[in-house]
Each structure stands twice: as C-alpha cells, then as structure tokens.
C-alpha cells in the first residue's frame, strides 16, 4: 500500500520547539504579544491573556498530541478576527474566559491555563459545554482547526488529487491486508 507520511512538513528546529506539551506554554509580553513555543500572536481584539487561554481551551476541545500549539493558535486567530468585527462576539469570548478562569480558581486555586491535568480542565469545560461561549469556540474550531491544510497532513489526509491524476495509479485499490 502507498502509505501517507503524517510527519509535519516543518524544520527540525520547529519540531523540537513544538514538543508535545499537554499544557500550552504561552507568555504575554509587555507589548501584548502572546509568545508560545514556535508561535506568536498579536491579538487584534482580544486581551492577550484571553487569547492564550483560548489556545489551551482549543487543544482541550480537540486534543491531538501530534499537533503543535501553533495550529491551535491559528484557529484562535479566527476567533480574534471575529471579535474584532463584532463587539458581541468579543464580549462573549472575554466574559466566557473570565467565567472559566473563575471556575478554575474555585476548583484548583489557579487560572484555567495553569491547571495541570487535561481531565481536570475537561471537567471544567463539560460544566459549560451547553453555553453559547463554549459552543462558539467549539463551532469555530470545526473549520478553524480541521480546515487547515497542515492539519490534513498530520491526520494523513492527502487533499486535492485531480492535478495529480486522481488515484487511479496512486493506490485507490492498493489495500493488501484484507
């Protein structure tokens, strides 16, 4: 069978920097830049701290251990853009993160993006999964995350095929184990 290479098409330095962290390690600079591992973002509408928490929340909603944080940050950039265009969306996201942080403080005495175990963070998310805030973030991620060509590569999806002549000579029927 012709197998698909799921390794990311990035440099060695980026791979090393991306690591496989359960926790998204991001810091906010005095200039308002969110600095992560091998990624950085300057939010246009959201507070940098809000942006960083949304990146962590995005990973917890759709956790893929071979995805670099940068892919989740790219997805959150779409939310930031929506917040820039709509005050209601901005308020929904800012307020939502505040409520989530308050719940984390109550349960764990620390903000959401510092809670160490994924399961503990997921419990906090399950408590708000029907809320418009959570639905907004999750709904956005369906395309914001999974419609990124870099994500397709990591999941082993080959994308466009017509320009390569389709699969007639590239393994449409090459299964050899059935």
């Amino acid at each position, binding site marked *: *069978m012709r*197998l*698909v290479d*799921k390794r990311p098409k990035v440099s060695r330095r980026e791979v090393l920097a991306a690591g496989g962290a359960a926790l998204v390690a991001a810091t906010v600079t005095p200039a308002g830049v969110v600095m992560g591992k091998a990624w950085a973002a300057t939010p246009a509408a959201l507070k940098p701290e809000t942006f960083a928490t949304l990146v962590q929340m995005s990973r*917890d*909603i*759709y*956790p*893929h251990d*071979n995805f670099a944080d940068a892919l989740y940050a790219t997805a959150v950039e779409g939310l930031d853009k929506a917040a820039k265009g709509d005050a209601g969306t901005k308020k929904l996201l800012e307020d939502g993160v505040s409520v989530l942080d308050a719940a984390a403080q109550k349960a764990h005495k620390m903000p959401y993006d510092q809670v160490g175990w994924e399961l503990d963070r*997921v419990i906090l998310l399950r408590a708000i*999964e029907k809320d418009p805030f959570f639905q907004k973030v*999750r709904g956005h991620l*369906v*395309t914001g*995350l*999974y*419609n990124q060509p870099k*994500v*397709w590569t990591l*999941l*082993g*999806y*080959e*994308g*466009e*095929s*017509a*320009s390569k*002549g*389709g*699969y*007639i000579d*590239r*393994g*449409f*029927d*090459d*299964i050899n*184990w*059935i």
Partner: protein
Amino acid sequence: MAAPYDKNDDSVVVVIGSGAGGGTLGAELAINGIDTVILEAGGRHETEDFENDEWPMFSKISWLDKRTTSGSWRVAQDFAGLPAWIVKAVGGSTVHWAGASLRFQPHEFKAHTTYGDIAGASLLDWPIDLKEMEPWYAKAEDRMGVTRTNDIPGLPGNNNFRIMKAGADKLGYKECHTGRMAINSQPRHDRAGCQQIGFCFQGCKTGAKWSTLVAEIPKGEATGKLEVRPNAQVLKIEHDKSGKVTGVLYADKDGNQQRQKARAVCVAGNSIESPRLLLNSASSMFPDGLANSSGQVGRNYMRHMTGSVYAVFDKPVHMYRGTTMAGIIMDEAKHDPTRGFAAGYEMETLSLGVPFLAAFLDPGAWGREFSSAMDMYPNMAGMWLVGEDMPQEKNAITLHKSEKDAHGLPIPNVHFDDHENDIAMRNHAYRQGAAVYDAVGATRTFPTPPYPSTHNLGTNRMSEKPGDGVVNKWGQAHDVKNLFVSDGSVFTTGAAENPTLTIVSLALRQAHHIKDRMAKGTL
C-alpha cells in the same frame, strides 16, 4: 424560433430549475423541437470552477438561502439553518450527487398495498408501476451511462469498497458490488472515464460523472431550442382568469423583477422550493396556493431514512481515494417485516475528507473521544445507509410566519419528525453496518447521525385521485392543466433507492407526454 427567447414569447415552455428533473426535461423538450427556457436560481459554474476542496466548493454551489427547521429529527438540532444539502447552480444537485442509479423495486410503487396501513403514515400507491417505468428507466440508464447496464462494465472497487465487500462476504450478503453508477467506467458519450479522483461531491473534474450541467444541458443548447437563464429566482407563477398559468415572475441577478411568459410551466426546484413557490403563488382564485385544492402541497415531506457507519481498523484504508459511492450492499433493500419494520435500505460506500468528517462524524462531539477518531483517519472505512422513510402529512414545507427572503417572500420552514418505522430501520441499519466492519476486524465503529437532507422528496406527490395529492401520473397538476411538477417532489413514496435515476426517468417520460399533448393541440 430559436434561443434566446423574448420574455414576451408566450409559446415557450418554462422550466424552473436545471437539476436532475428540470435539466433533463428542458434538454429533452429542446431535442424534440420544443422552445424551452430554463430559469435557474443559481449561477453557472463549469467544470473548471470545481475544486477538490470541500468547504470552498460547499460555499460556491450550495443552496444557502435562509431556511428554518422544526421537529424531532436530529438535523434540526445539529444543522438548524441547513435542513437540506443541495445545490443552487446550473445542473442543480446533479453537480454534487454521488452517481448511484438504482431502479425502484416493483413493490415500492405500491407501498400502501405492500406495507398496509401503518399508524401515522400517509402511505399511498403510485399511480404508475415498474412495468410502465421500465422503458423510461432504460432510456435514462443509456443517457446517463449507468454502469452494469447497456454492457457498461462496473467501476473498479477502491479500498473502501474492498473492506465493505470482505465484510459483506463474511456476513453472507449476496448482493454486493461496485454499484450501478452514472460515472463512466470507460470513456462514453464524449465524456472521459473515471480517474478515481475522489471528490465526487465537489463536482467531477473529468466529466466522468453524469450531470445535467455536463451531459444534458449542452445537448439541449446545441439544438438552438433551449435557453438556460442563470441567476433567475422565480418568485411567483401567474395565471389568467380561466386558471391557466401564463408565465412567471422572477428576480434577475441584479434583483430586478422580470416576467417571462409561457405556454406551460414546469416546476423543478427541489422538494423545498417547489412547494414553497406554489404556496407563494397564492391568488384570489387559488387562496391556499397554486395547485393546492387538495391541501397536499408541501406535505408528506420525505428525506429517506439515513445514517452512516464509519469504522476504524488497525491498518490503513485511505477511504477517500477513488469514487466516493462505488460500492453497495443490496440485501437489506427488500421488504421483510420480520426485521421489525416495513420497507428496506441500501448500504453504500461513502467517504468524507477531513474537513467534512470533522463536521459530520458526530456533530457537537468534542474531547478525546472525538479527536482520537480523527487521529485514525487513514485507517477509516465508511458507508452510508439509505432507506425508505414513511410519508407523514405533518412532515411539511410551510411558509414562515414572519421571516422573509431578499425579495420579501416568506422563507420555508422544514418540519420533520422521524416515524417509529424510520427509527427501527435506522437502528437495524446501524447494527448491520457495524457488523460488516466488525466481521473484518474493526476496532471501533461510529453510528453517525443523518447529514442535512440530500434526498428531498414527496411534497407535491403524485396521486390517482385529485384529493390525495398534487399531480397526476404525468406530473401534471390536478388543478391546473398547463402546470407540471418535474422533480423529486412528485414522489408518492420514497423507495429505498437513491432517487436521481427515477427523477430523470420521470422527466424524460414527462417531456414526451408534453410533446404528444402539444402535437394533439391539448396544451
């Protein structure tokens, strides 16, 4: 006369919609020398506009005008604003269809007689039978180039099919093959053979897949007797004092209202827009909507019992490579009440790319339960389940009480409650679909809920008696002699099979009926 036609030319037949019904009808009328104007609400996207990219193509060709939903069906919860997944473009939903072309079984034309009275179901026999349809099915199969008919070989099986076939064999299913598909397995009728591209739903890049866009409309236009007017959204069908229709009012691409006169009008806007147009065409003479003396316009909306089963294996499959739906198990399509439900269903291979699978595998799901499934994408196989659902009067297209479209007309609401027969059939199909994959070593299976409706049927149903339905056996309105319905909304019942072949066959038959009546001077 020759195309293009003057808007005041009242000798033309106006066809509303250019999909399987309207596109076929318009082309066949033109080929038979009849001056025809097709008004298509969407734009014209030729093959070069098609992209192997799911969301951009969805945005480009889907019918995204606002609609609302109600009822207990899961689509109303998962996709409240998108009850139907159909195309607004020249070619209609034949641009994105998968190509499965199956004839009805004899008993499916006689659903009421065969299944008997079922509580809550408005079952009715079709006023036609398989014998009457056979020559039209044969003509349609030849036109469309359906594999396994007319000495056309079947498509080769892709990896997704080979999984299905191995599982079917283990379960003892006897009727499993690569389907009867309107996709060229070899070059035919000036169209190429399939290159196993995948992306059948995004418009075929080689033209191997039959659509009215690439196969029928060009033939009709070549006669000089067919004008296809895109970006023409019909708002109202007009009539004279005698109750005959005289033409249609439509909005052009700039939103300006135009009037096209007509000798006859054929409605083929799919099972949501067709009844909506008839209801929006109410007048003092027809206060409940055009052709609606029976009160049946918009009722008995059917959308097929559907669902999908995806499975993960410990080794790669690459289900997305090759023809999307070239694989079928037909053993469960029979009517066998010992299974606990009436009617039957087909199991057909299906694959989605990562973008669509993320949206449709389990809408609303999140966390590792979901992402771990996506992680196994290369090792997935998939099938679609499609069976006959019960018609119910309360399942209906109605005009929204307050919301209006860009032209000031009420938008449609789509109400659907699953019948208990639909639910029993779906549960059986989920079990059998999972069993097919379990038989060949699936490590995990997913009973995926229905997608927005691709098979929209029954809202202007065909009936022997005028009180039972909207149109007669020719698709002619019981109430209005020169008004026809030419799409899947005429289906009296839904049958288990994908509907396109039957829609095309009915459209060809209707074209010849219209021609005969014009020759006799009765139209």
